[in-house]
């Protein structure tokens, strides 16, 4: 509590922070930054640079695979004559090398169907990976449908969703004919109208605004044009 004398000579006229402070040790007239403060800033700055030199490469090392696109891979799955227009043949081929059976995937392959307005000189390869959460679907010939065992996704003959939870049609693989052999290439996804887009993971919608909510990843191949 300030008494009468304090009030008279103004000892508490200003709040505590604004009262004159004694000069810090080593202070000389006119300096803008004390020596102690300069060393504090320098030490923290150098520490920050040293920390970043360790952390940033480590984080980059861990996230680099997001931006890396592997080599395009094509694999022959049999002569063109092996495939027919009105049903699928199951082929197994390697999608990821170096991990044995875990890197293999299944495709359902047929010739282009004249009934559907496709060119029978080309082949269509539909991925067995369910567009819901990635379980393997099976083509059931009696029903002409693809059926997923996990959560009951059902797709029609061309891979469009006709039942269950999948958000988009089945993925497809790029195809080409080389020396009479049908070859399968990179995977791509399709919109609900079967327009090719870059490969998406299962569970993700395609087309329209979804192209922005589930952006294409740099690790996937561009879809075939047309």
């Amino acid at each position, binding site marked *: 509590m300030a008494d009468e004398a304090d009030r008279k000579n103004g000892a508490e006229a200003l709040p505590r922070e604004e009262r004159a402070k004694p000069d810090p040790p080593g202070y000389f007239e006119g300096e803008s930054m004390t020596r102690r403060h300069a060393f504090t800033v320098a030490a923290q700055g150098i520490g920050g640079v040293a920390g970043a030199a360790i952390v940033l490469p480590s984080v980059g090392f861990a*996230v680099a695979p997001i931006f890396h696109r592997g080599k395009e891979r094509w694999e022959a799955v049999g002569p063109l004559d092996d495939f027919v227009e009105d049903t699928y043949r199951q082929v197994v081929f390697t*999608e990821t090398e170096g991990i044995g059976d*875990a890197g293999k995937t299944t495709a359902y392959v047929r010739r282009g169907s004249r009934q559907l307005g496709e060119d029978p000189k080309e082949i269509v390869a539909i991925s067995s990976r369910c567009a819901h959460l990635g*379980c393997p679907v099976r083509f059931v010939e009696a029903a002409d449908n693809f059926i997923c065992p996990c959560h009951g996704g059902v797709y029609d003959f061309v891979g469009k969703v006709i039942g269950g939870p999948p958000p988009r049609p089945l993925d497809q693989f790029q195809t080409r004919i080389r020396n009479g052999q049908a070859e399968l290439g990179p995977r791509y996804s399709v919109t609900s109208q079967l327009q090719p887009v870059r490969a998406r993971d*299962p*569970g*993700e919608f395609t087309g329209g605004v979804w192209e922005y909510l589930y*952006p294409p*990843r740099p*690790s996937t191949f561009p879809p075939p044009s047309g």
Partner: protein
Amino acid sequence: MKLGSIIPAPLRKPAKPGESDAGKGAAPADLKISPPERPSDAQRLGERATEAPADVLAWVDQRTAASGLLTGMLYRKVPKGTNWFYTLGSATLFAFIVQTVTGVFLAMFYTPSATQAYASITHINNDVFLGQFVHGMHKWGSSVMVILIFLHMARTFFFGAYKYPRELNWVIGVVLLILTMTMAFTGYLLPFDQRSFWASVVGININGTGPVVGPYLSDFLRAGPEFGATTLARFYAVHMLLIPGAIIALIGAHLYLVAKLGTTAPPWLRGERPKVAAPVSQLDAGVEGDGAPPAR
């Protein structure tokens, strides 16, 4: 020899005030005629030997002052009504310790390679001495830990123990819950059989359904656009290095806050009235009162 004399004095439970028996009695009347016998060399050696552990503990304690921390943790006051529900946190911690110990020993035989992982697991289960037992402890222990952490969380919620001043401990606990679930998720892939492979495929794809960041998150988890050679190694590193370190650090913070803030009484215990009723004006100067004892 009593156990109490082996424990060095600083680690003993402090006596309640007035209970100390350090008072000196009167000297025996016949001290001059029959002085106390000198112990033999063998007796003294035996005495020294029994005191050695206490001496070692005291030596460490003098240099670390750890006994204050220990007695503070072990003899801290707990509220009336503390019951078995309050042991769920310790039970979760015990489950974590079991997972740590069995996990370290499983790592000695496990190979995190897509082509050899399953073979190394069958080797552990079929060939290694007690391998199936240790593997089973780790496998079922993970479920036990997940169940216990949820029960512990439910106890905290229903007892209102997350309220001021323990909100930060609730937040740390939620992070620990998420890390535990991540442990369960990453560990599930490691046997690399059909079930764990497809469960992880589905789990990664569920991660991918998050808008905007989802596709990149699933690429990060897989280390590429497809489930590949490095996916298993990545899950293994996350499972045994990254998350355990974070969990241990956060458990330390969690326990520190428990010891510092204390535990709560169960909600069915009402605050007790003081035995001598004090005037309201003394209890709380901010409340207007006439100085009379509170009405019963």
